[in-house]
């Protein structure tokens, strides 16, 4: 367990602190004793222990950081991998801002769990027990007082903790929603400004932040009570012991040294408990974060690994056999017993109005969805049996609006096949006719593009996507209305590149009825998830 070094350094620190308390008591006792000047060694001991204690504290800090880093590294990789492997549909209803909250902020918050809560929960028992053992040896009655006070602490925490757990969860949701709202409004800031709504949104944001404060304070009102339990216990212990020793002093029966030692040890007794109370906040946050992590989609069960027999040179054939698919029961079937066959090297144009099922066909072939009924085979192998990696090796995809990643245009092309050579990239860019606009850019292909491809027009971004497909050079090409958002001149330009891309590959292309004639190939009209019987297979 990564928390063990933190616990050991913490215990060492407590033992050294007790030694120091002993030295102080000896010095002061000797000073108070009539006429006596004590020996020098307790002073030297105090100084030496102080230095050792300092070093132990530094070592504990380092160990705590290492424990937190190890834990965060593991959890973040797990969460990220799960999100990246999840079907895009499974996350359709979750705002990316909320996912970012989980992957970044929630996991950062889990640092407290590994670095503080786990060690503190061990030290909260071991530390006080160590102090008690020594105090019991010096003054058994005082030890009993400390036991009584110490027992009250966890009791109070449990009472305070039950309410705080529920409140922490609600606070976490408020936080996630607030962050999602910020990201959404920041992304749409141009729209907000154009509508003259900036002030209204600022006010709305203010009240959302206010609501967050209100929720947080509700958590803290309860959580602070557990801190107060500690205060009560510690103050009570000090008052009882001080009064007891004061009475003994009045009676002339006080051993000053042991009494001082016990009073000094009180703060060492409560220090681990206080650290535990502080870390309790960390645990509450961790529970909320763990809930959020648990809500992420599970890794899909790994299908039996079966590579498609063919290699890219031999091409790929695709068969849909009576395939049905439902995204949302309320909206009916997206695909309803669809069958077709695309032999290797041929182009199939799926035509039809929006909602006819064109995109669903592509989603299945991309491995983002599984048919509810029927079979989809690639080169005779059921698509359900293919490992995602071998499916993505076979396919290249050009969507309606490609996402460009932060980086250079070149990086974005390279995304399709990172091991490609400079020559291959240049060839892909040329094939996508990118040099025309790249020449006008300040740094050519090295020009940085922002999130969402700022600085590139829709047509230019689409060329990057085509260049990706050229670079990937996969035998199966999936195109989803690649010219939907382009003007006719740009469309004509791009079509030229696309036709070259299509040559020699198996292609499935979704297109509006009006644009379908632009592509040569067999045409299949879809309506309501079925082959359109009026038009039929042309």
């Amino acid at each position, binding site marked *: 367990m990564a928390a063990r070094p933190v616990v050991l350094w913490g215990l060492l620190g407590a033992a050294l602190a007790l030694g120091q308390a002993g030295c102080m008591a000896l010095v*002061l006792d000797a*000073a*108070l004793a009539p006429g006596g*000047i004590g020996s020098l060694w307790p002073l030297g001991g105090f100084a030496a222990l*102080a*230095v050792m204690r300092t070093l132990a*504290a*530094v070592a504990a800090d*380092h160990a705590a950081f290492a424990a937190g*880093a190890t834990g965060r590294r593991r959890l*973040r990789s797990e969460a*990220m*991998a799960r999100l*990246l492997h999840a079907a*895009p549909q499974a*996350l*359709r209803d979750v705002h990316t*801002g909320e996912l*970012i909250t989980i992957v970044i*902020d929630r996991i950062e918050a889990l640092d407290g769990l590994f670095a503080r809560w786990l060690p503190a929960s061990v030290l909260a028992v071991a530390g006080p027990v160590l102090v008690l053992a020594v105090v019991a040896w010096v003054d058994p009655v005082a030890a009993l007082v400390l036991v009584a006070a110490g027992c009250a602490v966890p009791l109070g925490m449990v009472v305070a903790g039950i309410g705080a757990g529920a409140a922490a969860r609600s606070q976490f949701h408020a936080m996630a929603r607030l962050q999602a709202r*910020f990201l*959404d409004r920041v992304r*749409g*800031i*141009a729209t907000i*400004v*154009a*509508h003259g709504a*900036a002030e209204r*949104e600022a*006010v709305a*944001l203010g009240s959302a*932040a206010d609501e967050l*404060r209100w929720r947080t304070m509700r958590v803290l009102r309860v959580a602070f009570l557990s*801190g107060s339990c500690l205060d009560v216990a510690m103050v*009570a212990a*000090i008052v009882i*012991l*001080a*009064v007891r020793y*004061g*009475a003994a*002093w*009045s009676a002339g029966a*006080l051993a000053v040294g042991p*009494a001082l030692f016990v009073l000094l040890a009180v703060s060492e007794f409560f220090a681990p408990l206080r650290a535990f109370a502080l870390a309790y906040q960390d645990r509450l946050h961790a529970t909320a974060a763990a809930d959020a992590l648990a809500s992420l989609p599970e890794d899909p069960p790994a299908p039996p690994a079966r590579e498609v027999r063919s290699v890219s040179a031999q091409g790929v054939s695709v068969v849909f056999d009576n395939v049905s698919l439902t995204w949302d029961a309320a909206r009916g079937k997206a695909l309803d017993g669809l069958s077709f066959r695309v032999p290797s090297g041929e182009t199939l144009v799926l035509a039809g109005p*929006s909602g006819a099922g064109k995109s669903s066909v592509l989603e299945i072939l991309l491995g983002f969805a599984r048919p509810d009924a029927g079979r989809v085979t690639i080169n005779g192998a059921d698509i359900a049996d293919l490992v995602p*990696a071998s499916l993505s*090796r076979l396919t290249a*995809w050009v*969507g309606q609006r490609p996402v460009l990643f932060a980086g250079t245009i070149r990086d974005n092309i390279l995304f399709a096949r990172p091991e490609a050579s400079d020559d291959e990239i240049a060839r892909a860019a040329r094939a996508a006719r990118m040099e025309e606009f790249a020449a006008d850019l300040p740094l050519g292909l090295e020009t940085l593009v*922002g*999130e969402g491809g*700022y*600085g590139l027009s829709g047509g230019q971004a689409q060329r990057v996507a085509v260049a990706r497909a050229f670079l990937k050079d996969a035998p199966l090409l999936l195109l989803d209305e690649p010219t*939907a*958002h382009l*003007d*006719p*001149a740009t469309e004509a330009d791009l079509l030229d590149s696309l036709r070259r891309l299509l040559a020699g590959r198996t292609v499935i292309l979704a297109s509006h009825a009006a644009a379908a004639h632009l592509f040569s190939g067999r045409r299949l009209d879809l309506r309501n998830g079925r082959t359109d019987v009026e038009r039929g297979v042309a």
Partner: protein
Amino acid sequence: MIILGRILLLWRARLGWLLAGLIVALASLAVGLGLMAASGLVFAGGVVLVAPWLSGLGVARVALRYVERLVTHGAMFRALADLRVWFFRGLARGGAGGLGLRQAGDVLARLVGDVEALDGLYLRVLLPLALALILLPALVVVIGAGNILLSLIIGVLFLTAVVILPWCAARSCLAAGRNLAAAAGALRIAALDALTGRREVRAFGAEGRMLALVQGREEGLLTAQRALARRTAWASAGAFLCAQAALLALLLAAHLSAVIVIPVVLLTLAAFEAVSGLPRAGALAGHAAAAAQRVLEAAEVPPPVPDPAQPGTMPKGFALRFASVQFSWQADRLPVFSGLSLDVAEGARVALLGPSGVGKSTLAALAMKLAAPQLGHITLGGVDLATLPADAVRSRIAWLSQATHLFDASIRDNLLLARPGADDPALWAALEAARIAELIRTLPDGLETWVGEGGARFSGGQGRRLALARALLSQAPVLILDEPCAGLDAETEREFFLTLNDAVSGRTLILIAHRLSGVERLDRIFRLSAGHAVAAAG
């Protein structure tokens, strides 16, 4: 550090709360120290006098600690909410033209991460520092009553622990804090990129690469955090040693002169313990300064077109006129317009045609005051736009841009952005005109249906129609529709224009498109080419 002062200035309005926090914290500290000193007094035989005092102080201590936590946290959250809203307003002023190359992920990191990094500023930096500075003279006076030299030694050690060491920690952490903020931003961008583009990532089998990228950025963050943690640990160790040296000095004094110093020892112990967090706070201040720098930078981008110092009176008319306008986005780029002249009379229906990249959208941006011409004038109702405040201009012109953002909210909330307080019949009328009402009536939640991130719950064409409905709902007399039918099939497009012919009677309509469907009822048609508008027909 000066930068933190500017953040404090933003919190002027919360001064009352912030001061209340300080006063309660001070009272709580004074009672705590009094309790420790009083418990030491029992050794002077004052138990009869002290026992009720002790209990009273104990009760006060517990109560004040609880109130202190509540008040200081409440004050901090209020100040933070102010900061968020101020930041959003700043962004809205400067970000009207869209986020551009300042990526949304980065802006979000500033907004959420950096604004949160400032939360420690009050609670963990300013408050303890103020307490320590008030405590210092009190401590010197109390100890000085017994021994001047001793009080000076302890005073210097205390000053070292609360001012000098934290200052050194802040200085040395400034650079580390800047690295940390940059590393956190980089991690967030990588995660946001990977999750936003998860379709691309899956389609190209890039899960492993993206995960490795995120892990690499995380290592960067951990390295920066580790450097910060090390420095903080050593600064804390230094302050701890100061406290130990002060105790050693007291013990030495006791050893040499046998003066009764037990209350003083306990007081000193408690005083140093109360401020033991300050070196950590110093390190935090370095980090907070870096965060503050980024927050201020992001929020203080100047508006693209500054408002006139003395705004002219808003004209009644709304004829839009471009007179010999010359404009280029950047000095080193070719001008988009070189002497563009265009007259759009009140209530006219005008189409602007031309291939993409010819400046059709730039024309809209100029009319919306998102940019200003370098030469020539644009007038609205005969008044130069340069003399009118941007908000007033935007209230007269509704613009459906190609990059219009749909917010992650209900359909109703998305529509109300254009006309707050619009009633249901008005909303439905706009939806009818945009040819989307029929679909929305079939949805179980109707107008309350959630739109999803960027309109993700609707298809591209449906989302476009929602944005269109929003533009139509606006009561601005001038309507600029930039490619309103992008992504719609031909049939829907024809239907839309037939409705549009009636929907905007009396308002000026500027239709920006690359082609016409043939059913639009238009007064004039212009063709944009080579930076000029040429009348094509009408």
